[in-house]
């Protein structure tokens, strides 16, 4: 097709061809084309097949309101080709058709519509019952547009940006640009978002102005250049707002252009004020076959010509309900498109200049008429126009029908901020009832049509936003407001719904093939409100969401419920719109995911351990070394701690300092035990409970000075501990400071019979058992002056020194110990080895041997609870109550009868003789080399806790009858007297 090349409004560069491949044939568009415009220019009329009826679908609008032009591009399904710029070498395919969209073997589905009434799937395919599983598979295959391969990989680059601004203007048309300029004049930093590749909105492609003014496209260009050169205004084109949330949070996605370093960029910002100036679209006209290829919105036909240089047909008929429609007809006629007739549902209120223009060009004009039907299977052959009272009709041949019922405001962004919309009788629009603070609107979204009004309303909104942000400009805003009020208002939009009839092929929603008939059926079945009808018929739930049906569905429902069609309200109810939900445009998951950072913490000796072959696992926010060999039984690591010495990186444990006059009170509140009993130089093991007495954390507390304490928490709890203490002391007005030192503190646990030998090599301090015995702590330094706080603990059951070291010294300390230990067989061990070692000692790991049903007493840790402190700790009530409660899960040690049988952790304990046969489960169980037995810890109901009780273990692998035998035994299993850790 030859393009119109001399238009001043053209946005394609006809000197720069862009090749593409469509169904194995090469074609060529131009720089600036979207995929859809390039295809249209190449003669493609059928872009896709519809979801249910496989009807041919073509270009209907240019902003992606429906799935009509969704295609597969470079392997990516469901690309909205009407908004996607044509890129060099794009591989374009149809979808949802057998063979091609043009010749789809499933086209016969269109004739089966009477078997598919609204919601038919709810009342079919379930009888007999055996039919449904088969039918479900077929439904699945038939449904869905586009296919994505499981091994598809997204190749684009995705970026994120979190810009700051005082004002975000959404929509770069004349109103939005005026708003941005007015606000910038008042000193605001402004961000302007525009979905199209250029600014200008509805002015960009229009020649006509009002009266003496410059042509609209020139006004747009002038505004655009002022906006683009203002430093205070940042313009983002190709950037569609997709989300609006409370307190003015705005999200948007930019599609990268050829010169951008990204393909998609996610934007998120929280400006102080928002101006929504997204203009209006055309409301689709409902008539028979209203979505045939060859039927399009008048604005679409106009933009095809003026922006892309494409005349959409050879002979056109127009059916409109708005002046812009008349303008499009006139303009296209002047550009060389033969227009056979123009119908307008309005009987009065047309712009007289436009009507005169039509007369001058001898275009028959039918006020009070509308399109009633289109003939033609794969395109438009003829159109039937009829008078709205139904009295007369005329059939006209043509290949293009430009049809719209009128306007519909692009109110979706506004509704995300303003909540439910209400029907406005004046404009016939759905508009916000209230505006939250800092949210303003401008332009055609209100129903303004005259260019002058649109521009002034933008200024008003910009100044209002500036005043909201504190600028002294209320007077100026009011002056413009008065100026606007003095100008003639826009004419009420047409409220035309449709000719009476069965509406069998009158499409309300294209994506889901929903017709007027379906809506009527839904109402007939008792679905009274549009929100329910939407669900029952699926109208507005497809890829275009409410883009096509949003306005018409509620009107149609009102009309169906109302016998007289010029009144849209019945029983006092007015059309109720459905809820708009983000994202306002479909957004690639890749674009939302953005740069895909992984947030993780590494300990100061992460690399050192990696170098020694550590296998890391994520534990909460941390990476921890779990294994130091491929042997997941870690027997060498375990043996080495028992016979020589090992070192464990325990830096992830929470480390806190609490100090101040009421520090002790705060500790008393959160710890079950009595923290006033902490002896100088001694370590106190302690537990925190929740209100149910469940242990939420355990660790140690030491007193490091007057009113000054240090305590540790488990890895997982470190993050919550400050909040926990703050919350549980919130009414006390206590004076203390709490500092989370976790990230600044590294911990090495040096454990094993040779631990002292190693330590003595790196410090001058006296670490002998006499000077530094079990359960004590001490500050000293390692060679070279590395300060350490050393705690003598025994979690793994051997002589252990837990060295707390400033994080910045950790690497040095690690290396020093490593070297000093080489003669003693020192090697690192991981969390799994620790797991086995502490299991042999019967030491509990919270979450592994405890859960929400177990409290401190159930874990045999009642000794950590002090009943008579003057400050009642959290959980005390529950613990006191539980002392009298016999039926609780309790921790026991178990030993497998068969020492070659190691059931997996989590296996359950069962007894068929009782009503509730699952009597407990295994927390951790391992083959212990030190004991030459399989031992574990389990939670069982109280009745099975006596030593010697036989238990049946079921691991969930085989049949429930396949059990393993175990016996309840005393803990600890290893070194019951605790001699080895006291060495």
């Amino acid at each position, binding site marked *: 097709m030859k393009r119109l090349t001399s238009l001043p409004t053209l946005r394609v560069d006809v000197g720069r061809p862009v090749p593409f491949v469509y169904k194995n044939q090469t074609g060529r568009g131009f720089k600036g084309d979207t995929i859809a415009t390039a295809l249209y220019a190449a003669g493609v009329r059928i872009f896709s097949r519809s979801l249910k009826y496989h009807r041919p679908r073509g270009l209907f609008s240019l902003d992606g309101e429906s799935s009509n032009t969704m295609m597969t591009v470079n392997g990516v399904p*469901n690309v909205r080709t009407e908004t996607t710029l044509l890129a060099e070498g794009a591989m374009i395919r149809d979808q949802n058709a057998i063979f091609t969209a043009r010749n789809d073997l499933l086209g016969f589905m269109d004739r089966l519509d009477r078997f598919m009434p609204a919601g038919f799937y709810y009342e079919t395919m379930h009888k007999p019952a055996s039919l449904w599983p088969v039918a479900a598979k077929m439904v699945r295959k038939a449904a869905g547009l586009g296919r994505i391969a499981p091994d598809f990989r997204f190749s684009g680059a995705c970026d994120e940006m979190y810009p700051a601004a005082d004002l975000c203007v959404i929509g770069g048309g004349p109103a939005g640009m005026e708003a941005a300029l007015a606000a910038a004049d008042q000193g605001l930093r402004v961000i302007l978002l525009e979905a199209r590749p250029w600014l200008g909105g509805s002015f960009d492609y229009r020649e006509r102005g009002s009266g003496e003014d410059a042509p609209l496209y020139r006004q747009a260009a002038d505004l655009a250049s002022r906006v683009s050169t203002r430093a205070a205004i940042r313009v983002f084109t190709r950037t569609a707002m997709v989300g609006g949330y409370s307190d003015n949070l705005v999200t948007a996605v930019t599609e990268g252009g050829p010169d951008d370093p990204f393909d998609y960029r996610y934007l998120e910002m929280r400006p102080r004020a928002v101006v929504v100036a997204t203009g209006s679209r055309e409301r689709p006209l409902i008539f028979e076959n209203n979505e045939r290829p060859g039927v399009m919105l008048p604005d679409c036909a106009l933009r095809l010509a003026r922006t892309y240089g494409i005349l959409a047909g050879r002979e056109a008929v127009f059916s409109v309900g708005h002046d812009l429609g008349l303008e499009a007809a006139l303009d296209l006629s002047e550009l060389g498109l033969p227009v056979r007739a123009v119908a307008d549902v309005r009987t009065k209120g047309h712009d007289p200049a436009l009507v005169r223009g039509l007369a001058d060009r001898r275009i028959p004009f039918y006020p009070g008429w509308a399109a009633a039907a289109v003939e033609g299977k794969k395109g438009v052959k003829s159109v039937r126009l009829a008078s709205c009272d139904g009295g007369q009709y005329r059939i006209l041949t043509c290949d293009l029908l430009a049809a719209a019922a009128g306007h519909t405001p692009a109110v979706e962004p506004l509704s995300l901020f303003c909540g439910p919309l209400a029907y406005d009788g004046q404009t016939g629009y759905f508009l916000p009832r209230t505006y939250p603070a800092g949210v303003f609107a401008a332009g055609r979204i209100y129903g303004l049509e005259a260019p002058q009004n649109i521009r002034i309303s933008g200024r008003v909104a910009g100044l209002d936003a500036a005043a909201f942000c504190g600028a002294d400009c209320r007077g100026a805003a009011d002056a413009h407001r008065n100026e606007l009020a003095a100008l003639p208002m826009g004419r009420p939009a047409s409220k035309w719904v449709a000719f009476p009839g069965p509406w069998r092929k009158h499409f309300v929603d294209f994506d889901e093939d929903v017709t007027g008939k379906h809506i009527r059926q839904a109402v007939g079945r008792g679905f009274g409100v549009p929100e329910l009808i939407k669900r029952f018929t699926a109208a507005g739930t497809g890829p275009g969401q409410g883009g096509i049906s949003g306005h018409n569905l509620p009107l149609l429902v009102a009309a169906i419920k109302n016998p007289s069609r010029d009144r849209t309200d019945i029983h006092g109810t007015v059309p109720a719109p459905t809820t708009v939900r983000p994202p306002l445009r479909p957004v690639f998951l890749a674009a939302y995911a953005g740069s895909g950072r992984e947030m993780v913490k590494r300990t100061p000796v992460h690399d050192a351990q990696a170098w020694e072959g550590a296998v890391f696992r994520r534990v909460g926010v941390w990476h921890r070394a779990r294994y130091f060999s491929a042997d997941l039984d870690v027997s060498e690591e375990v043996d080495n701690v028992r016979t020589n010495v090992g070192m464990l990186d325990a830096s992830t444990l929470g480390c806190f300092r609490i100090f101040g006059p009421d520090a002790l009170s705060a500790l008393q509140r959160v710890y079950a035990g009595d923290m006033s009993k902490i002896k100088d130089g001694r370590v106190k093991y302690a537990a925190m409970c929740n209100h149910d007495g469940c242990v939420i954390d355990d660790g140690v507390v030491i007193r490091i000075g007057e009113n000054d304490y240090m305590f540790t928490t488990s890895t997982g709890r470190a993050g919550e501990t400050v909040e926990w203490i703050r919350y549980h002391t919130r009414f006390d007005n206590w004076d203390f400071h709490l500092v989370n030192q976790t990230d600044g503190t590294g911990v090495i646990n040096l454990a094993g019979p040779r631990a002292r030998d190693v330590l003595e090599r790196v410090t001058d301090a006296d670490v002998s058992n006499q000077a530094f015995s079990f359960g004590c702590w001490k500050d000293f330094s390692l060679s070279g002056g590395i300060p350490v706080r050393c705690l003598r603990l025994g979690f793994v059951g051997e002589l252990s020194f837990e060295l707390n070291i400033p994080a910045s010294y950790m690497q040095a300390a690690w290396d020093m110990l490593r070297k000093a230990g080489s003669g003693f067989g020192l090697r690192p061990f991981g969390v799994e080895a620790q797991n086995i070692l502490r299991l042999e000692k019967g030491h509990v790991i919270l979450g592994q041997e405890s859960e929400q049903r177990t409290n401190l007493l159930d874990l045999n840790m009642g000794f950590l609870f002090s009943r008579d402190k003057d400050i009642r700790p959290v959980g005390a009530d529950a613990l006191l109550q539980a002392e009298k409660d016999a039926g609780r899960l309790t921790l026991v040690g178990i030993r497998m009868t068969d020492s070659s049988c190691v059931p997996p952790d989590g296996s359950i304990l069962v007894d068929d003789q009782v009503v509730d046969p699952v009597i407990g489960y295994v927390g951790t169980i391992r083959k212990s080399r030190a004991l030459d037995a399989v031992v574990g810890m389990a939670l069982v109901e109280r009745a099975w806790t006596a030593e010697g009780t036989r238990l049946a273990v079921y691991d969930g692998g085989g049949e429930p009858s396949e059990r393993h035998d175990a016996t309840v035994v005393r803990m600890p299993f290893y070194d019951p007297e605790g001699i080895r850790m006291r060495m």
Partner: protein
Amino acid sequence: MFGAKHILPKGNPPLESAYDAVLIGGGLHNLATAWFLAKEHNMNRVAVLEKNYIGYGGAGRNTAIVRANQRTQKNIPLYKEALDLWPVLTRELDFNLMFYNCGNLNLLHSEAAVKAARTNIATAKFLGVESHLLDAAETAKRVPALNLSQKITHPIHGAMYHPPGGIVRHDAVVWGLAKGAAEKGVHIHQQTEALGIATKNGRVTGVKTPAGTIYTPRVLVSAGGYTAGLLYHMLKIKMPISVLTIQAMVTQPLKPLLDHVVSSGAYHVYANQTLKGEIATGAHMDPWPNYTTQTTAGYIKHQAEALVELMPCLAGVKFMRSWAGLADMTPDMAPIMDGNDPVEGVYMNCGWGYFGFKSCSATGRYMARFLATGKCPDRLKPFALARFKNHRLMGETAALVNYTPDN
């Protein structure tokens, strides 16, 4: 072939001055209760009061996942009965509830998760509910889109596979139950808010509505996320319930890609493909108590980040719509079903959080029995409110759950 019978009654039935039972809330649980009251107990002078329209609450917002592989023996049988009821209800209601039995895969991303799954699997199997442990390779065979790389945030160790589960069309359940109940004479009053519960001497006497008081000896409050608030404001009954917002979203429809419901605790995400082809996905709740049904920017982004890592091909798919509903959470992730305590004739069924769709059929049946006989069925006894007073949580989740602001 298609009788133009009503599914929902056209307009509201007349509001009578007395009913045998009044059910507050037009969600799944009450509609199911109404159906079983009428069907199994011949009690059809029953009113369901719904403030908006039926299915307005969680009933119309959930992601329709059904399964029976719960954690404890008190829960599993109830969920199993519920699962077994879908085909039965489809037949009895003569309405296709579209139970799609695709099975559920819970991805496991650590040794600890495998252990936790083991307990669930063993318990389920022991009680006759099919459930298996799969290794990573077997898992990927079932869901080829999964990312088996070790380099992702939470590498996949395997999965808990539960073949009997799947998805059901949630709207169909709402409408089918409403249709069935209405056909049996139950009055469903939409746009009718319960304003208060009238009592006398510790007994219920009626329910206040904008159209006056309805007299009744039985009231069941089961209004999803609103229940705890209603019980407190109407009767000063305090419930240990935190209400949180939970969001969900769908992608554009695709040809079949996911053959199972896939969920991942570590990534806080689950996804399944609806019969329409959309990938429906949701996850954890917003982390603070809240009565809003607004969505948030962070959530949809998180979903995308998680899904793209777990199933990289989804990067090339688009999100199309997101929404939010309320989850009424108890401290032990098990519901509260109780009655006649502290007020004679007042029943409650709530705390269903984000898992109350799958159970509605069975609970409706038991609650109907409870209302009809006045005696709590054994199956429901463990779910009494008093368990919290006694610090005896049910252990439906192993973790300690906390929704207060200290969380």
